[in-house]
């Protein structure tokens, strides 16, 4: 309120206000100009690589055979592929929904287990115990007629 009476009674004050605004705005513009390239530079480039259905390599298939599970990249995501005792294939996102650790498969109990904070999931990806708040995202795992295994994202 007081400033307003000042500006009206002293016209010079309003000129100064205008200049202050001008200087402030230029400074802000300068700051944005300086910051923009650095922000763009720091933002990582989008990941490039194969996307879509992924065939398991021979190595991965033999690992699956041996350990009953294998972790493979599918469209840049970690996916755990496992073989249930009845030979059925399952595939889930290997990223635990709690803090993002990579989960493992325990064939003896037929559970997916995250060792970081002891989260357990069943073979439908649902939480059995522990702190994970959500079920694991499911992937499609199919055995082709030629015996190779293809993993693909589930269509919603």
């Amino acid at each position: 309120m007081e400033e307003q009476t000042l500006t009206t009674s002293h016209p010079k004050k309003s000129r100064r206000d205008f200049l202050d605004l001008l200087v402030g705005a230029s400074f802000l513009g300068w700051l944005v100009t300086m910051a923009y390239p650095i922000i763009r530079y720091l933002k990582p480039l989008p990941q490039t690589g194969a996307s879509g259905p992924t065939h398991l390599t021979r190595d991965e298939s033999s690992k699956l055979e041996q350990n009953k599970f294998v972790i493979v990249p599918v469209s840049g995501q970690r996916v755990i592929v496992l073989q249930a005792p009845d030979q059925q294939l399952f595939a889930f996102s290997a990223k635990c929904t709690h803090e993002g650790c990579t989960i493992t498969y325990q064939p003896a109990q037929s559970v997916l287990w995250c060792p970081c904070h002891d989260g357990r999931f069943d073979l439908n990806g649902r939480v059995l115990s522990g702190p994970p708040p959500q079920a694991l995202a499911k992937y499609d795992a199919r055995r082709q007629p030629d015996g190779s295994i293809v993993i693909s994202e589930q269509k919603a």
Partner: protein
Amino acid sequence: MTLAGSRMGALSFLNKKPDMNGPGKGGGLLGWLDRRYQLTALTEFLRHKEVPLGSHWMGWYYLGGITLFFFIVQVVTGVLLLMYYQPGETTAYESIRFLTTKVPFGWLIRSIHSWSAHLMIISLVLHMFSTMMLKAYRPPRELTWVSGYLLFLLTLGFGFSGYLLPWNKLAYFATTVGTNIVASVPLLGSWLLQVLRGGQDVTINTLYRFFAGHVVILPLAVVGFIGLHIVFIQRQGMAPPLGAKVAPRGMKFFPSFALRDLLLWLACLMVLLALAVFLPYGPGIPGMDWELGQKADPLAPAYPGIKPEWYFLWEYQLLKEFPPHLFGLEGPQVCLLLIALMFGIWGLIPWLDRRVRRDQPSPAFSDFGWAALLFLTYLTLLAWDIGAGAASGAGDELTALRNIARVCAWWTLGAGALVIVVRYLRYEHRWFLLSGAALLQVTLHGLVGLTYLLAGVISVVLAAVWIVVAHFVGSRTDRRSET
């Protein structure tokens, strides 16, 4: 001296015990901190610090700050580059190529880093020579000179080590030649060479060592010495030139001088950015471009045109002027000895300049600075090949070299004459023996056609004889007052 003495008490706040119940200035966060850490005492110290005003030009006082500014830019852009750079045989070159072609503004960050490196060396050299000419190294500021001198050497190390990191052909061979000089050190030579290179030859192990040096060892050392350098300067204040009429009250360092500094930094930043944006691979001057070029290949032969950065060109040229053998030693050994001697003299100037230690003018040392500049100028021009274009048609190589030397000699003589005239008329200097000797060498080599070393020896001997004779005759010419 008295100015510095009166300021010694100003740092007494360092010994103050925290007075938690004391008033502290103001409330809020600032008051809370002030009661604990006596911030007001610190700003009080800065407020009392003054920059000497008088008949001298203030401009020289800003060069150190500008050098610091470019160093800060180097740290910031260097850290940004580190986020994409991957040292390694198959990654170093590739990561820089990825950075400059794919990463948004990657080319700009690299361009700023390169430009700022060159500008930092330019401002550092100007700062050093202005300190030299104005005799700011005189007591009590000898150690400020020494710390600055060490910073100069470390900065050269930065330039040399950073040059190899993109792992391209030019850098590979320049580093091979540059590190090979170390082999000339007596006794320790081959050990030093292996430690520097991480093996007998320049390999990827050399890159790892240079990388460690460039991003960890040198930055730590430089930050430490900058701290020391600044503590010295804050403690003693800036030096007024010898014999200058200094006003009784100087300019307040804070805020008056600091704000001027800041404004200049802003101007430097804008110039730097303009250069980096419009000339992203350098101005195209030899020794001042950073086109990535081809990847280094240790099994490929060297090719013509392998030259270091511009600030090493004089050493490169001097090395070329030495014959394979001299005085029973190898040419490069004698050359290294000479370079070491010159660097040694440069570092010890505050003690060698005995007249200025007694607060008397020392015209010989002013002239020494100019002679050094002329010496460096001539060698750099020779390495730059100015006049080579005209000479290339001359047929045999010797005539071509003569032509280059002649053109460079005329340019150096012109510059030298101009400097002497300006010093004589404007600054009333009357002592030109050393710069005269430097110009004599240029004349004998470039115009008469003697070898570079013979021309140098004749000039040095003549200058020495002159000094000895003048000393015995008691000529008064060197007693005239000047700075």
